[in-house]
C-alpha cells in the first residue's frame, strides 16, 4: 500500500491531539448521559403514583363485576393519551387532541343482516339496556404493549338479545363511523375505511365480551372510542373496535380492517397467544405501560379459564 506523503494532508486537517482524545471521552460521556437519561425515566415510571384527571361525565349506578382483575390500573392520563385510533392519526399521541371535537351526539347504531327486523338504536337507548358494570380488564395491543383499564359497560350479549339475530347468524360484524371531515386520518388510505371488525357468534355471546361506553367511572373520552365501543380482552386490542355505528349479523366470516391490510399478519381470531408470533415481531412478551421490565404474555391474555373452551380442537396457529 502506498504510503501517502504527509504533505498531501494539510496541517489544518490533522485532528489536534486534544480534540482526538476529547472525542473519545465525549463519546463515552455522551453514552453515559444517554444511559442515565434512560435510567431516569425508568425510575420515574416506578415511583410516580397514578393520577386520575378527567373532565367527562360521571356514570351513576355502576356495579362491580367478578370479571375484574385486581392488577394495578393504568393511569387515566396514559390510557387517554396513548391511542391507536388511525381514524385520527397513526401517531399514538395525537388522537387525544384530534378527537376533541368529534360529535358523539346524536349517535345511532343500526342493526342489520340476519335479524328478525332491521332496527336503528339511539346510543342513549343502548346505554340503558342493562346495569352498567365496572370491568377492569387487561388490554393487550398487537404491538406488544398492554394496559389495565376499568371499562364501564355491560356484556355484549345483552345488546344481542335485543337485536334478535336469526338462528342462522354465525358471525357479528361491527363498523366504525366513516367521516373524513371529523376524522382526518381517514383522508389517507392507511387502512380500508370504514374500519370493520367481527366476532364469531359464540365469542360475541360470551359474557366477557363487553359493550362499553365508559371508563374510570366516566363517559368514554372521544379518543378511547366514544360513544360506544367493544372490548374483547382475550384478543389483541385492534379487535376492540371503537366508535360503533353498525352491527350486522351474517353467516359469513366478515372482512376485518387489519386482516384486509395484512392477511398474513392479522388474523380474524387474533387471540392473544404468546406461542404464535407476529411475522415481524415476537408475541411472547409485552411492555405493561408504567413498568420498566417486559412481562411474559399470557395465553388468551390471561382469560383462558373463561374462553379457552371456545377454541377447543382449533389449530390456533392456523387460525391466528
Amino acid at each position, binding site marked *: 500500500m502506498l*504510503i501517502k506523503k504527509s504533505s498531501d494532508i494539510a496541517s489544518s486537517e490533522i485532528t489536534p491531539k486534544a480534540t482526538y482524545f476529547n472525542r473519545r471521552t465525549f463519546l463515552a460521556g*455522551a453514552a453515559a448521559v444517554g444511559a442515565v*437519561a434512560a435510567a431516569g425515566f425508568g425510575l*420515574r415510571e416506578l415511583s410516580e403514583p397514578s393520577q386520575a384527571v378527567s373532565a367527562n361525565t360521571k356514570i351513576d349506578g355502576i356495579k362491580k363485576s367478578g370479571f375484574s382483575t385486581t392488577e394495578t390500573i393504568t393511569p387515566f392520563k396514559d390510557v387517554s393519551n396513548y391511542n391507536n385510533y388511525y381514524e385520527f392519526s397513526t401517531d399514538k399521541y395525537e388522537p387525544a387532541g384530534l378527537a376533541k371535537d368529534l360529535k358523539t351526539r346524536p349517535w345511532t347504531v343500526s342493526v342489520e343482516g340476519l335479524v328478525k327486523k332491521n332496527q336503528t338504536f339511539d346510543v342513549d337507548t343502548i346505554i340503558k339496556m342493562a346495569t352498567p358494570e365496572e370491568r377492569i380488564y387487561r388490554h393487550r395491543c398487537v404491538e406488544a404493549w398492554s394496559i389495565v383499564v376499568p371499562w364501564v359497560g355491560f356484556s355484549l350479549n345483552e345488546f344481542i338479545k335485543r337485536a334478535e339475530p336469526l338462528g342462522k347468524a354465525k358471525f357479528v360484524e361491527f363498523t366504525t363511523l366513516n367521516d373524513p371531515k371529523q376524522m382526518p386520518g381517514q383522508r389517507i388510505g392507511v387502512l380500508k375505511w370504514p374500519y370493520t371488525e367481527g366476532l364469531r357468534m359464540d365469542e360475541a355471546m360470551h359474557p366477557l365480551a363487553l359493550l362499553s361506553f365508559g371508563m374510570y367511572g366516566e363517559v368514554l373520552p372521544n379518543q378511547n372510542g366514544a360513544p360506544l365501543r367493544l372490548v374483547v380482552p382475550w384478543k389483541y386490542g385492534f379487535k376492540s373496535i371503537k366508535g360503533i355505528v353498525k352491527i350486522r349479523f351474517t353467516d359469513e366470516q366478515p372482512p376485518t380492517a387489519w386482516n384486509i391490510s395484512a392477511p398474513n399478519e392479522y388474523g380474524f381470531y387474533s387471540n392473544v397467544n404468546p406461542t404464535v408470533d407476529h411475522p415481524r415481531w415476537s408475541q411472547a412478551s409485552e*411492555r405493561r405501560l408504567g413498568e420498566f421490565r417486559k412481562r411474559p404474555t399470557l395465553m388468551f391474555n390471561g382469560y383462558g379459564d373463561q374462553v379457552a373452551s371456545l377454541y377447543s380442537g382449533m389449530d390456533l396457529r392456523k387460525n391466528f
Partner: protein
Amino acid sequence: MIRWIKIPVFLACLVPLGLLAWKGFHGMLGANPIEVITHATGDWTMRFLLITLAITPLRKLLSIPSLIRFRRMFGLYAFFYGCLHFMTWLWLDKFFDWHEMVADVLKRKFITVGMFGFLLLIPLAVTSTAGWIRRLGGKNWQWLHRLIYISALAGVIHYIWLVKADLRKPLQYAAILAVLMMYRLVMWLAPALRSTKSTIVRPVDA
C-alpha cells in the same frame, strides 16, 4: 473561524438527546417512554446519516467547500445516535438477554437489517480520523466510507419493515436518500460535472 462554528454545531447536535433526557426526567415522554426513546434515537440516526450524505452535494452546489469540515462530526453523530438506538434495544427491550437478542436478529428481518446497517457504521466511526486516512490511503478510505450508502439504505429498509401500515415517514427518508444518491449517480455518469474540489485528500481552504 470554522473551529469556532464547530462548537455551537456540536452542541446543537446534542439537543435531541438533551430534550429526550429532560423530558424523560420530567415525565413528559408520555405513556410509553421506552417506545418514544427508541423511535427518537432511530429517527436521529437516520437524520444524521442523511445530513452527512448531504454535505458533498451541498458543498458542490452551493460552492461552500468548507462544509466538508462538518462531515465527520455529523457522521459520528449518526453513529452516536445509532449506538443509543442499539443500546435502547439491547438494554430496555432485551435486558441484555443474549439468547433473546440472537433470536431477534435471526428471526426478525427488520432487526437483521437494522443490525447490519449499524454494524457497517462501526468501521466508519473507527476510521474517521485523519490518522486513518493516512494509514489506509485516501482512495481506500473513500471506498470504505462509501459503506454509508449501504448503511443508510439498511436504515430505510429497517424502518419500512417495522411499521404496521403507515409507510409515510419511512418513505420520506427513502425519498431524501434517493435524491442524495441521485446526485452521486449523476456525478459518476457525467465526469465533466466533477470539479477538482470534491475529494477529501485535497488541501481544503481554511
